[in-house]
């Protein structure tokens, strides 16, 4: 590996009204390496990348490619300079096939003059060759909508390669991949490295970073903290550089004591063959029950069925030893359940509504006066109190929730459900996409709730979080419960073994 840098962004500054989003940040990326870019949400990673893609114009600083200064004003420019990005949320054209997605905007043509048509044959052959070179097993004429997230991601990577990209930015590429798919992705990344491609890798998953990155650059509050060889770093070192203080503990001390059984589930089975089946468990008052498993273990499906969002073929649910039927979230709320969904943006927030309305949305009936109107003063007080209690950082109650950070949005959703005074809180990946500082606050909230006697079911794909927060962990594998382990004494190996036990 030579010393020359493929991409250099030197002294980049960018100011928004009232915020210095980037303050003299420098990052140098070597060819054929994976360069991890780390920092809490809001540290300026995405702003920096948007400067690279010409979405923002930096106020100061310059971008060098192979030592040459370049000006990039839009993402097409970036592509032409060999810079492409694999987004966290992929946006393919779902009803069209793979090759049309890859060659979109630059279809190979045949014919002449006004009689030029898309050359389907050449497109097919080119696509096939592209996949062969990258050792990917995807057929060029597959309809994209029928593919898995990981396959679509592979397709996007192939697309980037087809543009002859020298720098590929990957934003949280593994956030929705299964273990096997991650392995496949890493294999592809190795392949790309061999071709001299540099990869800027944005992720919150420390273990992953240490496994795959060559260099690590950490940012904090719009400033560069530093760049180090990944081999010299440990998880704790990275975290302390990200948060700017030594992290003595990642999880709060819990002092909840599980009481009598509140919820009992017996043999819950989905009507769909590949979904959850025969799930039985108990949840005690004041207990945090972690639910572990790989992506595809049907954990989300299970809790959504518990909450009445999905249908159930057989099985019984008992609350306080009385059997209950839950056919809709309305029933679930009546039985004092609350669900914080995994996809915060899709099923959680109301983006164009204010923080206040987002806080109150599940609880409007409490404010109806005898004249069928809403008690405005009480609404405002409740919203204000809960938003303060959960330390939501928001300029005002009237701010639209879409303008808050992920962590603060999540706290608003916590506030929403706490107002319904639930006994059972179901949390589906409660800290997903939330930066480390806010994670600790969310953990504290969860621990406090358990201490108050609320029962909590927490799905998490992060093993440290599961082990750090749960009293007990229920591990699921291929739709079934493969075992229970004690939260305090469980090991990662034990959980992984259970999680993969029923895979075929």
């Amino acid at each position, binding site marked *: 590996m030579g010393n020359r840098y493929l991409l250099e962004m030197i002294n980049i500054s960018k100011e928004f009204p009232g915020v210095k989003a980037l303050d003299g940040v420098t990052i140098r990326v070597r060819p054929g390496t994976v360069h991890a870019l780390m920092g809490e949400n809001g540290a300026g990673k995405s702003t920096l990348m948007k400067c690279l893609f010409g979405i*923002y114009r930096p106020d100061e600083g310059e971008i060098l490619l192979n030592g040459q200064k370049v000006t990039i004003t839009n993402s097409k420019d970036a592509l032409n300079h060999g810079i492409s990005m694999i987004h966290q949320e992929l946006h393919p054209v779902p009803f069209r096939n793979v090759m049309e997605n890859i060659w979109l905007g630059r279809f190979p043509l045949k014919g002449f003059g006004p009689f030029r048509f898309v050359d389907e044959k050449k497109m097919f052959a080119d696509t096939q060759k592209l996949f062969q070179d990258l050792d990917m097993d995807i057929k060029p004429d597959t309809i994209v909508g029928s593919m898995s997230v990981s396959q679509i991601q592979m397709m996007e990577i192939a697309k980037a390669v087809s543009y002859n990209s020298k720098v590929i930015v990957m934003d949280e590429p593994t956030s929705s991949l299964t273990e096997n798919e991650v392995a496949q992705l890493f294999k592809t990344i190795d392949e790309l490295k061999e071709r001299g491609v540099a990869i800027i890798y944005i992720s919150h998953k420390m273990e992953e970073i240490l496994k795959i990155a060559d260099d690590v650059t950490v940012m904090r509050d719009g400033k560069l903290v530093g760049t180090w060889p990944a081999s010299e770093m440990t998880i704790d070192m990275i975290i302390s550089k990200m948060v700017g203080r030594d992290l003595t503990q990642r999880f709060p001390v819990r002092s909840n004591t599980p009481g009598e059984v509140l919820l009992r589930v017996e043999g819950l089975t989905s009507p769909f063959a590949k979904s959850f089946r025969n799930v039985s468990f108990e949840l005690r008052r004041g207990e945090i029950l972690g639910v572990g498993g790989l992506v595809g273990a049907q954990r989300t499906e299970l809790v959504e069925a518990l909450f009445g969002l999905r249908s159930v073929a057989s099985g019984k649910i008992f609350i306080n030893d009385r059997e209950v039927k839950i056919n809709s*979230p309305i029933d679930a709320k009546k039985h004092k359940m609350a669900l914080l969904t995994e996809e915060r943006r899709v099923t959680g927030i*109301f983006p*164009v509504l204010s923080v206040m309305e987002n806080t109150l*949305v599940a609880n409007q009936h409490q404010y109806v006066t005898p004249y069928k*109107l809403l008690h405005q003063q009480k609404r405002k007080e409740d919203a204000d109190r809960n938003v303060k209690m959960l330390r939501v950082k928001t300029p005002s109650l009237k701010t639209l929730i879409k303008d808050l950070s992920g962590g603060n949005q999540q706290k608003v959703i916590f506030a929403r459900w706490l107002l319904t005074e639930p006994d059972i809180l179901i949390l589906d990946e409660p800290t997903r996409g939330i930066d480390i500082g806010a994670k600790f606050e969310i953990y504290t909230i969860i621990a406090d709730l358990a201490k108050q006697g609320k029962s909590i079911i927490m799905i998490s794909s992060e093993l440290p979080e599961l082990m750090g927060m749960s009293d007990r962990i229920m591990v699921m594998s291929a739709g079934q419960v493969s075992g229970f382990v004690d939260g305090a004494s469980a090991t990662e190996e034990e959980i992984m073994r259970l999680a993969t036990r029923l895979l075929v």
Partner: protein
Amino acid sequence: MSGRKIISFMSQNAIYIVLVVLVIAIAIWDTRFLSLTVFRDILLQSSTRTIIALGAAFVLITGGVDLSTGRVVGLTAVLSASMLQTTDYAQRFYPNLGEMPLWLPIVIAIVAGLLVGLLNGFVISKFSIPPFIATLGTMVMVYGINSIYFDLPPNNSQPIGGLRPDFTNLGTGYVFGMPILVLIAIIVSILVWIVFNKTVLGKNMYAIGGNREAAIVSGINVGKNLLFIYAIAGALYGLGGVLEAARTGGATNNYGNMYELDAIAACVVGGVSTSGGIGTVPGVLAGVLIFGVINYGLTFIGVNPYWQLIIKGLIIVTAVAFDIRKYLAKR
């Protein structure tokens, strides 16, 4: 900094600024435009449109659309007019009908509108048919029903006229120097504002339009709420139809044709988002008034009606282009 503040104020209040600028521009052209009579006429012409547009706003804010608006207006205009003719009129719809109390046909017509709305809401929430299609169906059906009714002997599709003065008084009369019609529109606007801002139904309406999935997860009965919302919308079109008949002193089965487009145009110009979740009563009022001012003002200064159409179309697109800037991601 203050420059930025002005721009932000302008884009936050684009609709109202457009309205004021329009009035000023027309007044500069012809100063006689600035008179009480002119303003009263504009308000009078905008009153039924306001009521109808508010109905459409309910639906638009849930992220839906209602194409049946105009035909419901036609149906209820014909229904109310057919029962409110003077007893000595030659071509009565019901030759042997006695004098009904004024409120009864009005209530019947509004209930008819409400029932069509209920049907819309039922089909949309029960069978998950997209609102565009469901209301397209009712739009066609309601016209058919109205035409059959209108064609009943002895009327045989004759325009209904000879309406009772106590009925037409609703559309043309005054109390305390204020047109009754304008008064009704103001009262309806206030009621709708209360529903939008102070009731569970209103909050749920914004939530359903803002994120339907999240509304379901939050335990909102989306189907039931939609049912109510389409029914209210239908009832408002019904009231609009009744008042159209009263204002014009007659009715045919073609009354209200294409009113849905006017209503939607007024709503979107007034800042209601067609993708749902956004919209206010003052915005809708401003939207209706902008069209009122254009219709009246351009005729007032003698602009050719075909040019008026072109200007109207331009206003729809530019107003929305400005308004939408509020919600675009800030970069």
